[in-house]
């Protein structure tokens, strides 16, 4: 019975809900930023970014220019240096150069009311941390992952409306993500992540403006 072994696991881990190509692109960019802020890029990821096409910079498009700088930086960066930079920038209690948690930037301390407010919103949206995950919900990576799930839906969960995405962005991202990304960009020890944060800031500005359109 050789036919028994021909059953392959599904190639994707979730049902893909049909969304507009622009929203797919937004979700992809959030996924990439989330991944880069969750952990340093490995060699495969750096190579994958480095091999993507450059965006055309018609009329000195700052978002395209920032993306192209990130592509070039990814080609010049190696995984060991990325890990060292990530550790120096984001890891270490009270020692990290730039704190990637929203509560720190809004309230001045970690795990303060802004995190509680975020958890209330997440509960209302039917979202929660995975069991065993220690990353706080107001980490840059977790925040980007949350809005990505709102855009794409996941499993049995359908995509959320633009209004819901806007409300989440306005309440839990806009108050701090720009300050945080600017701090990363300007941090003296930031090299590769200065390029990540630069692109992140510009993309988030596009998001702020487009979601405000309704």
């Amino acid at each position, binding site marked *: 019975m050789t036919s028994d072994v021909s059953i392959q696991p599904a190639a994707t881990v979730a049902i893909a809900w049909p969304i507009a190509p622009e929203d797919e692109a937004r979700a992809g960019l959030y996924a990439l930023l989330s991944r880069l802020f969750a952990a340093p890029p490995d060699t495969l990821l750096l190579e*994958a970014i480095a091999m993507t096409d450059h965006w055309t910079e018609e009329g000195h498009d700052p978002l395209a220019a920032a993306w192209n700088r990130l592509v070039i930086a990814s080609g010049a960066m190696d995984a060991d240096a990325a890990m060292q930079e990530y550790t120096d920038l984001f890891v270490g209690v009270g020692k990290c150069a730039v704190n990637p948690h929203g509560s720190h930037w809004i309230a001045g301390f970690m795990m303060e009311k802004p995190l509680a407010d975020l958890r209330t919103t997440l509960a209302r949206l039917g979202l929660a941390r995975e069991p065993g995950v220690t*990353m706080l919900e107001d980490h840059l990576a977790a925040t980007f992952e949350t809005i990505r799930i709102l855009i794409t839906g996941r499993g049995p969960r359908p995509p959320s409306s633009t209004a819901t995405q806007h409300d989440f962005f306005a309440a839990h991202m806009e108050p701090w993500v720009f300050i945080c990304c600017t701090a990363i960009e300007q941090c003296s020890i930031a090299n590769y992540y200065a390029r990540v944060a630069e692109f992140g800031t510009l993309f988030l500005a596009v998001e702020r403006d487009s979601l405000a359109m309704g």
Partner: protein
Amino acid sequence: MSKSPQPNASASVAPIAHSTDLKRRRFLLAVGVGVGGTGAAAVATQAMVAQVAATAPVEVAVEGQGYRETEHVRDYYATTRI
């Protein structure tokens, strides 16, 4: 909410939600997200595969009998990756 429409808005037959969404989509296309973003999205797909195994910070809370990606399932998916 049963307000009558504005007198001079009769020419616009498209629902407001539709027209504003179109405006948003045009804006995204104009700034390059959607066209330039496709390459990034392809990379991100790869990144997401890694992220599923690495962190996956948030997920849909269990409600009823819906799908849930537990650590056990995630470990299984990790074994299916090259």
